[in-house]
């Protein structure tokens, strides 16, 4: 599964994207965030306020409880500030 990061989430994680092999039991976006935070302090920092960071599954906005089975690309980013 490919993970991509944008704006200050990207800067805090320290990379634009990565391919990950998920362990069993990671079923939702929230599970994925919890697993990422266990991987190092850069992830801990990026997701320190979990309610702020948004997610998208295959280019569609997704809530923390959304299932990630079958997803090709999951993105994490701050609230949007375009327009």
């Amino acid at each position, binding site marked *: 599964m490919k993970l991509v990061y*944008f704006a200050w989430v990207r800067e805090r994680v320290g990379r634009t994207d990565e391919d990950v092999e998920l362990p069993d039991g990671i079923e939702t976006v929230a599970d994925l965030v919890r697993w990422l935070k266990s991987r190092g302090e850069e992830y801990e920092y990026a997701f320190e306020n979990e309610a702020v960071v948004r997610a*998208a599954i295959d280019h569609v*906005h997704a809530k923390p409880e959304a299932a990630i089975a079958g997803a090709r690309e999951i*993105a994490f980013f*701050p609230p*949007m*500030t*375009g*327009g």
Partner: protein
Amino acid sequence: MTVSIRIQAEAFDVAAETAALTEGRADIGAVVAFTGLCRDEGGRLTALELEHYPGMAEAEIAHIAAQAQDRWPLLGLTIIHRFGKVLPGDPIVLVLAASSHRRAAFEAADFLMDYLKTRAPFWKREHLKDGTAGEWVEAKDLDDEAAQRWL
């Protein structure tokens, strides 16, 4: 129904885009144009840098445009959003909404901007006059409240 959605680094010309939308059409009675520009925030900024999520930006704007078409009797839509570095005074975003009558065009343009600001994956970062890269612009609660009006 003509829908044109573009994500681009280059600036755009409102008059040329309006002409392209209405050319050869005798059914359009109203075109509302909204242009969002880069401010210098009282002289503090030299530029804004816009990051976007390629692929999702196009998909999300198409989704927002489809919602507008479901809600109002539109005859044409043009949405352009820039990425990269933009200077104070430069255009960032354009929404053109065409309809037979003005009300639908006004409301659709208003709706599209509220949704673009809160749902399209773009992020602004400030570049400051002292030459340093400033902060990422924070999302405003007011923008969320504006988008809530349409629910």
